[in-house]
């Protein structure tokens, strides 16, 4: 029982990362109708920025983190300008292809600039963690869960309690009508890209101390987050969170009880099972085609 609880804790920690990246996916789907396959690269870039600011430039840890998040938010706007804006009136597919192209470019750009060697960074706290009953709560996993929860709450407050949130929602539901009301649609979409890139970056910063920082980080996180999005229900915010957490738990339990080398396969088996049995996901509507 103790081991199971321990695995659940670890699975929820990893799942929280998938949930954060999946949240970025969902926001862009809802606001701009864009499936952004560069979402994993946002996490990778966030992790590399932390490596640069903390490991190389030796800035204080929290300064390095805040600087990385700010740069990622700005990067989101640049990314939107390069991949979405020129193609925004040409339907969903060209933008998807464009984000795939951008993700390949970014991964290889980092490879050229930084090389293939993986980097490691310190965790948020020096203390290894705390023992709660049979479960040892690693401080980094605990930080991931707390920060992910705070971000979800912050997002809820922004979307549900502020006028900006209502304008963002209106833009996601009907862009033309939003513009007829005087809502600056372009600004709303750019804000969503910035936010989406920032939370992707935060996910990368949070997972950097657990996994080695390498260019491979991007694709695996992106695929898991996309799977979380499908499992939770395409375009659903609660679905992205629950889908991410479920995926983290399933792959951790699968790795522990069945096979470590097939860890990633469990996540995708879960995705396949959902596509066959419940294609609309946990919270989604029944759809035959989107984006």
């Amino acid at each position: 029982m103790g081991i199971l609880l321990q695995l659940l804790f670890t699975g929820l920690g990893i799942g929280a990362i998938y949930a954060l990246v999946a949240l970025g996916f969902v926001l862009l789907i809802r606001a701009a109708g864009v499936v952004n396959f560069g979402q994993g690269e946002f996490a990778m870039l966030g992790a590399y920025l932390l490596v640069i600011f903390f490991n190389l430039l030796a800035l204080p840890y929290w300064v390095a983190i805040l600087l990385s998040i700010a740069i990622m938010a700005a990067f989101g706007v640049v990314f939107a300008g390069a991949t979405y804006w020129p193609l925004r009136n040409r339907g969903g597919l060209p933008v998807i292809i464009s984000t795939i192209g951008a993700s390949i470019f970014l991964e290889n750009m980092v490879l050229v600039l930084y090389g293939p060697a993986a980097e490691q960074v310190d965790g948020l706290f020096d203390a290894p963690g705390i023992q709660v009953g049979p479960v040892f709560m690693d401080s980094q996993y605990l930080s991931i869960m707390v920060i992910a929860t705070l971000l979800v709450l912050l997002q809820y407050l922004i979307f549900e309690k502020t006028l900006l949130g209502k304008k963002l929602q209106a833009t996601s539901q009907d862009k033309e009508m939003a513009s007829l009301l005087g809502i600056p649609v372009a600004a709303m979409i750019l804000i969503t890209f910035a936010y989406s890139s920032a939370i992707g970056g935060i996910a990368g910063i949070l997972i950097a101390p657990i996994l080695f920082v390498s260019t491979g980080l991007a694709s695996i996180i992106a695929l898991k987050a996309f799977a979380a999005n499908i499992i939770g229900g395409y375009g659903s915010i609660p679905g992205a969170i629950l889908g991410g957490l479920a995926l983290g738990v399933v792959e951790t339990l699968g790795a522990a009880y069945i096979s470590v080398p097939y860890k990633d396969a469990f996540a995708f088996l879960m995705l396949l099972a959902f596509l066959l049995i419940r294609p609309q996901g946990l919270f989604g509507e029944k759809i035959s085609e989107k984006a």
Partner: protein
Amino acid sequence: MKLLELQGLTARYGAGDVLKGLDLHVDEGECVALLGSNGAGKSTTLRAISGLVPNLAGDIRLAGKSIKGLKSEAIVRLGVSHVPEGRRVFPGLTVRENIMLGASNRKGLRRAQMNAETDEMLGSFADLGRLQHALGWTLSGGQLQMVAVARGLMAKPRVLLLDEPSLGLAPLIVQQVFRIVADIRSRGTTVLLVEQNAHVALSVADRGYVLETGRLLVTGKPEELWSNPQVRAAYLGGLAA
């Protein structure tokens, strides 16, 4: 005084012109009906005024100044509020939130003032107060139309563009909607109304324009339009005034 004026407006969609050199004007405080059959170019005219049609020739002037080529967001800030065909109420937002967002064009409006005006607007439409926390997708056609009009009015427009407000509504609800249109007009708001139901539209309008395949066929006061046998037979359903 001409508040809104179209001068030789031509709109192109794909290979063909939907509007072909359209001239019309709406005086301040006037309610003008734009009539015609399906495909005559009525909705395109409103969309062009609101900056939603990219390929335009001719000019659109608001209080003497050209607004052609401006973005929709800029046009609504200048005082042109568009209640489009199909109501387009945001389905995932509540009635209150939908109406509140109608004031998005008014820069510097404080949240408290926006809330007070939303309360006032909710109170001035029967039923909307009680429905204020209902989500858009749960509303009936008539309720959606009320929300769409209330949202349009929150912009405090100089000109209200109303596109097919009676479409798909039961006769009793149509009467209710047009009582509201008459009320808006009596309070001095300039209205350009697009309607297929000529009978109800001309009952509230000061003047009417009848379009045929993007061209102006005839214009005049309601009684003049009713007395034109060609217009009555072809575009007004042959109904007597």
